[in-house]
């Protein structure tokens, strides 16, 4: 898949591995950073970074080892991130989110990734198309 980009769009393939996720994070921030409401909003940047880290880690942990196709677009409505992978069918929106622990005994060290994505996303949607998982995650920019 050829990489495409314009000021408001970036498409690329993310290879499996944490180093590749880190390169992707830097690439996305470098590309969209100058856009008002994105790079100048600490919360927006944090939200984008959480989504990239948590979703890509999740896909690579449970997937086939193939790259993930990532598309990031920015417009007046915000940021839309689309992830496409060829892993087993998985709909994150149907997973129960962990309850907030009230004490250490209740706290579980893992399982927070989807919870955090849900918190930072304006919306999310999973679909299965042509044998692939397609995950859309929308994030508000700091323009509002």
């Amino acid at each position, binding site marked *: 898949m050829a990489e495409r980009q314009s000021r408001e769009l970036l498409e690329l393939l993310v290879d499996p591995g944490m180093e590749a*996720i880190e390169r992707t994070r830097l690439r996305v921030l470098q590309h969209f950073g100058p856009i008002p409401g994105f790079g100048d909003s*600490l919360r927006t940047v944090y939200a984008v970074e959480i989504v990239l880290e948590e979703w890509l880690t999740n896909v690579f942990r449970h997937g086939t080892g193939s790259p993930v196709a990532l598309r990031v677009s920015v417009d007046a409505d915000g940021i839309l991130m689309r992830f496409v992978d060829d892993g087993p069918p998985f709909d994150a929106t149907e997973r129960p989110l962990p309850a907030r*622990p009230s004490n250490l005994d209740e706290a579980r060290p893992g399982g927070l990734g989807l919870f955090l994505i849900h918190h930072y996303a304006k919306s999310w949607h999973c679909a299965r198309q042509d044998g692939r998982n397609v995950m859309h995650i929308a994030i508000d920019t700091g323009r509002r």
Partner: protein
Amino acid sequence: MEMLVTELPGPAVGVDLVGRLDTLGVDAVETRFNAAALAAGRGTLIDLSRVDFVSSMGVRLLIMAAKTMKSRHQQLLLVVPEGPVREMLETAAIDTLIPMFVQRQEALAALAR
């Protein structure tokens, strides 16, 4: 991710983390962090003032440390200034599990009590 360890009165140990507490960051410091922060018989103050990102793996590291310290009846305190990192940790309910202070001086005072 960098990690700095300092001696504190008590006796206690201060662990200052610098950088990103994401999967790569946790991998880089976890062994040294556990050795320093979870030393038997000492309270621990973890300073996140110079941490600009925490992911679920970072939260996992903190929860595991808190559980260990609780089992030993030892104090574990966090310093987390106002900002996106603090917001994230509050979202994950870490503030209900581990005492969190905005400023280091407040945490040091609590450690001495």
